[in-house]
Every structure is written in structure tokens, then in C-alpha cells.
């Protein structure tokens, strides 16, 4: 059963960050919304807390920028937006991913599903 976990971990490792980038492509979003949406996806198998380090890394890499917004009755909340280099990285991933996915589908026989 550890193999199952390892597989999803491996698949996730290269792709989850681009899912994050895509989430803020159209508009800035609060961190809580990002992690909630991704955490809700069962097949991603990522608990909400594990996405926060990813957000930080993407910010350090310059693909996301973040601001804090003061809330009237709650703690300050962080919200993220896509930078230009983040946008470019997302576009690049899209091209790579489609070709990669098509190749794998063809090789393992899941194409056309």
C-alpha cells in the first residue's frame, strides 16, 4: 500500500504547484480558499496544511506574490496573485503537460478515455 502513496506523491510533486498557479490565474485569492479547494480534491491527496509550504515556495520563486489584508473582525489574511513569471511558467507547464499526458496515455493504454 505504500506504493500507492508513493505513486500519488510522485505524480503530485511535479504538478500540484501548477494547479496552485492556475487557481490564481484569473483573480487573486485568499490562501484559505486556495488550500480549501485543493484540499477538497480527493485524488490530489494533499491536506490543507501541506499546501502552505508550497505557497511559500512559489512565492519565494517569484511565481506568486502575496499581500496581507486586514479583516475587520478576524486575523489578517494572506491573499495570493500570479506574477508575470508565474504566468509564463503556467503556460509552459500547460504545453508540457498536454504532450506528456498524451504520451503516457498512449503508452499505458488510457488514451481516448
Amino acid at each position, binding site marked *: 500500500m505504500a506504493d500507492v*502513496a508513493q505513486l500519488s506523491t510522485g505524480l503530485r510533486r511535479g504538478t500540484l504547484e501548477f494547479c496552485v498557479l492556475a487557481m490564481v490565474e484569473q483573480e487573486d485569492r485568499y490562501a*484559505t480558499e486556495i488550500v480549501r479547494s485543493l484540499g477538497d480534491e480527493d485524488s490530489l491527496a494533499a491536506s490543507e496544511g501541506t499546501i502552505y*509550504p508550497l505557497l511559500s515556495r512559489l512565492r519565494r520563486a517569484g511565481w506568486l506574490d502575496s499581500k496581507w489584508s486586514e479583516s475587520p473582525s478576524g486575523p489578517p489574511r494572506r491573499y495570493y496573485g500570479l506574477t508575470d513569471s508565474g504566468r509564463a511558467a503556467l503556460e509552459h507547464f500547460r504545453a508540457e503537460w498536454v504532450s506528456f499526458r498524451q504520451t503516457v496515455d498512449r503508452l499505458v493504454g488510457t488514451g481516448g478515455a
Partner: protein
Amino acid sequence: MSADKRDELVAEWLRELGALVADLPVVQRRELLRDLESHIGSELEERPEAGETELLEILERLGEPRAIAAAAYEEAGLGQTEGRAFAAAVLTAAAPERYSGRAVVITPAPPVLHPRPEAYVPPAAAPQAPPPSDKPGRRGPSAPRPGAARGWARPSGFHAMLPPAPPPPVPPRQATPWVVAAVAGGIFLVVVVLVGCFGGLMLANGSSVEPASVVPAAPMVSAEVGPGPADAPVAPDAATTVDPLDAEPTEDAATVTPTPDEPEPAATE
């Protein structure tokens, strides 16, 4: 659940996580803890009447502190350190035991979130306010907050969590020195017994070896070698009977014969 108890539970959870990520660079560590603290606060803010169940649910969705710590080490790129091995071990060992299909847990035990009765008194630290900025123009908070009963202005246990230093990380392996000591002690005792038996056999070489002759010999040898198990009263007796090894003068000198034909040590008593 009272607000104080809730704060205490959250602070404890954050402390637990803080201990696990102690090897992160300090800025990243603080950032992670702050992000999570803000997350929990926001989630609780949306449910003004949140009790322990809701709080536990929030923490459960965040995931096991160990999984979060593993992700933090991995994202920090700690390749050569313990953090990386820790992350790999956690991520591969985390079997498909999941809470609600989201959190990745390490053990089948329920979350270790029992609020202890200890009195956690948060120091009256002012909330750390980041540079205020405008609300995002395009998207506001997802849910309107109809008159939240509890304001956030008071210095709560949340913010007080960050300034104090977290406790040092608990070393994962503590049993090893004891195991080693126990094994060494066992080996020592076995060696002592074997040498004693061997010595007794040599002394009673050729003649019928009574079991009684072996027993005194063992404590005798152990008294000679060093700490023996409560054999001080026995040692003088043994010394009077068969003792070519340490040749102690005794009262019954006549009974001490250096020849190996001495069969009955007990008879001399």
C-alpha cells in the same frame, strides 16, 4: 468549548508543529506557523459558535503535523539533512489511512489533541499586525460576517504563541542507549556464568563434578572479577573450598588443597 480552551488547543497544536519544524530556517518556520495560525483563525471566524468539534475538524483538514512538517522540509529543499529523510519516510510510510480522504496520517491513532488541564497563560503580547493594505478590489472575503460575536482585538493565545521560543524538538530515538546497556549487561552476565562453569570444571578436572561445586565456584569467580550478585557471604565459603585462582588464606586452610582432586567443598563446612 470556551474561547480560552479553544486558544489553548490551537496553541498546543501549533507548538507541536513548531517542534517538528525546528530544523527549518527560522523565517520559513515562522511563516508557516503564522500562515497556519491565520488559517485557523479565519476558519473559526466563519463559525462564531465553533466548539471543539468544529475546531478539531479544522485541524483535521489541515492534516497531521508530521505530514505538514514533511511537506515544509520538502519545499524548503533540505536535501541532505534529516529533514529530507524525515519527509521521505513520512510520505512513503503514510499509508492510505486518511481522514475524509484529505489528511494523510501516519498512525491509526486518533489526532493527538487532548487539551491538557495545565494552565497555559498567554503572555499579553500585542497582536502582530502586518502592514495594513487595502482589501483586494476584485475579490472580498468569501462569506459575509454577520456580526461576529467575538472581536479579534484582544491579545489572545494565538499571537502570543509566536514570540516565545518553541520547545526543543523531541529526539525520535530515546530507547537505544538503554537497549544497548541491557544487551551489554546480559552478555556480561552470560560470560561470567560461563567462565564460572568453566573454572569449576577445570578445578574438578577428572573427578565427579558435583553440582554444588559448580555453584560456589561461580560466585567466587564473580567476586574476583568484580560486581557479583549478592555473593559476598558466599565468597569466603567458596574461597575456603576450591580456590586455585585467587589463593586467599582462610580459616580452613587444611581443607584447601591445591590439587584438583578436591571433590567436596561442602564437606569442609
